[in-house]
């Protein structure tokens, strides 16, 4: 019998506080005291009001792939004899604290399955990502309300998809039914709150059932890798679809599956760090070579690469896996209303043209 508890809305803060003594908590919350402000995942401190009512503005990926992290530290040592030769020491020490993400959405957690393939399925394994991944648990909220920009079921997810989740949170009348889906999650729930009464348990069951059946979005991604290849050289298609693109990085930075990064060194005097930070394929400098040659010189090639990466290259490379979780953030945040569903959807139309 799975462990289930009920957390009444007014007890949520105290339960989270109790939970936070066992494990670091990351919860979706407003990034400003104004409730309607943009939201993101922030470390829980007592009093932080969770924003469970809507999808966060910034994605969950930063829990495993922070916007900036230190890959290694280095220090130069001057030769005491005064010779110009310098020696250097390098260390890559890192520390990971067990963390529970409480209140993620299924789309956000689903996106991590794509990141997992890239970062941990070799041939090279990224230790920074993998160590965080192993130490992070996900309590995922069954999504009761999707909006016009969501399309999770179109890309293999769903409002109640618990792939990669350790706990399921079901919003019911007056609170949340939280159910452990894995043994490590069970221990977390111990002595936290009472089991739900039968009425709420039944309601939770109904909500999950409804959510499992719900279809969200109508995008059909079957055959998109081939369609993309055919469209690749049709400049007119890309011109028509995305000429209004501003070439900014919003879509990539709010995307839960966009993982591309850059590595830069920052140094002050003799000490420095090698940093890894989010990068965006929408930027000119992303592919600019030292020689001055740029294989993707304009936003047409760059946007095309973004679509290709998600709907053609990743599927080809990783057995049909998609580089999109259907969260719709790129559509919501695009300053010029580019809708990736249209760009992908039209790939297959009259490709023979």
């Amino acid at each position: 019998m799975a462990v289930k508890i009920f957390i009444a809305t007014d007890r949520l803060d105290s339960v989270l506080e109790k939970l936070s003594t066992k494990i670091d908590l990351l919860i979706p919350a407003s990034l400003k005291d104004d409730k309607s402000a943009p939201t993101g995942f922030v470390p829980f401190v007592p009093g932080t009001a969770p924003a469970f009512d809507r999808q966060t503005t910034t994605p969950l990926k930063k829990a495993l792939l922070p916007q900036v992290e230190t890959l290694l530290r280095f220090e130069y040592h001057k030769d005491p004899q005064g010779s110009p030769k310098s020696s250097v020491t390098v260390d890559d020490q890192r520390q990971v604290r067990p963390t529970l993400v409480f209140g993620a959405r299924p789309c956000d957690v689903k996106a991590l399955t794509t990141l997992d393939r890239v970062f941990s399925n070799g041939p090279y394994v990224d230790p920074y990502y993998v160590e965080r991944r192993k130490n992070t648990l996900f309590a995922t909220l069954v999504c009761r309300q999707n909006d016009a920009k969501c399309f999770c079921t179109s890309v293999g997810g769903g409002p109640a998809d618990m792939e990669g989740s350790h706990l399921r949170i079901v919003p019911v009348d007056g609170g949340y039914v939280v159910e452990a889906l894995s043994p490590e999650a069970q221990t977390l729930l111990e002595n936290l709150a009472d089991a739900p009464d039968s009425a709420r348990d039944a309601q939770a069951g109904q909500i999950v059932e409804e959510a499992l059946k719900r279809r969200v979005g109508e995008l059909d991604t079957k055959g998109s890798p081939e369609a993309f290849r055919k469209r690749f050289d049709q400049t007119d298609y890309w011109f028509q679809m995305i000429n209004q693109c501003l070439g900014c990085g919003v879509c990539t930075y709010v995307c839960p599956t966009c993982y591309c990064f850059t590595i830069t060194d920052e140094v002050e005097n003799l000490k420095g760090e090698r940093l890894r930070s989010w990068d965006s394929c929408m930027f000119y400098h992303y592919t600019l070579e030292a020689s001055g040659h740029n294989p993707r010189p304009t936003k047409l090639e760059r946007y095309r690469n973004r679509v290709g990466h998600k709907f053609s290259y990743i599927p080809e490379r990783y057995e049909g896996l998609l580089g999109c979780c259907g969260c719709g953030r790129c559509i919501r945040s695009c300053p010029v209303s580019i809708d990736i569903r249209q760009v992908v959807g039209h790939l297959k139309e009259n490709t023979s043209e």
Partner: protein
Amino acid sequence: MAVGWVKRSAAHHAVSEIERVEKAVLETSRMQLHKLVEEALPELEMMIGWAESSDPLQTTPIFIRDAKSISKLTCGPLCSQNLTGYLVKPPALDSVPKDAKPIGICVKGCDSRSLVALIQEKFLTRDRVRIFGIPCRGTVDWRKVEKRVQLLNVKSATVEDDWLILDDSGTTHKIALEEVLSRKCLGCRYPNPVIHDVLIGQSATPRSTDLATTYRDVDAIEKEPLEQRLAFWQSELDRCIRCYACRNACPLCVCQDKCIVETREPRWLTQRAGIPEKFLFHFIHAMHLAGRCTGCGECERVCPMEIPVTLIKEKLNKIMEEMLGYAAGLDPDAVPPLLTFNPGETEI
């Protein structure tokens, strides 16, 4: 149309006879636009305007070369994008030869000022553009709409007089336009295009005629003590994810791929995501626009993190107006104040 903007508090109000007439006016503007573009298109290389997007609350820029697409053109308070940047940024015009026919473009009052600034700085010559001026009553900030009503699946959004009417999966929301207008519109002094070849619809009444109204938000910040201001900007700019949407949307940020915030040589900024980096980035953006910014508000509109970035430039605009008596984007022959000097001004 009622003179001025009388604030109505009631969110739900019966559609009056006058409002029906106003809706008709808007429809007429759209038809007028279609007709004018249809006439002009053969003489144009391309027409840049607004079209409906998959989200009824937002338009998307459209590039028309073919008369078939003219029917997609739209105008009105939902057309928030400033299109003038496309005239100077690749690749929209890479395919357009320099000696080609002029390019048609739709501009609101604020957009027309960007156009003036671009002409002034010689990124563009006047004869390269055919300007379709559209008097503006203010544009809708969709984020403000979403803050007022929870929207699930908006099927349609229409503007009838002072009201925005939304059909959200069968539920009708009627929201006073005044309450969901973009922040920049509330202090707008130039709702009518300052430069144009044709004008569509009736001219609009400026919402502000004085600096105090235009720069009310700047004053609100300045009333606070220094520490509070610092705290305010620290907390606002902390949200910045450095996606550079504000920079790319700005029609006057013409450096684009050569922008110093991304180059390693010179290296102004590191990749760190600390407050100093974010502060400096916005300082760079603002200082490079000092005396050039026309206050079109694109930077703020596009910010996914809802940082009031235009406000930073508003302050500089205010300084330019108060100190040097200059407002950008009004006179194509003027010289931006920081590109010139006056030996006599011993005490500025």
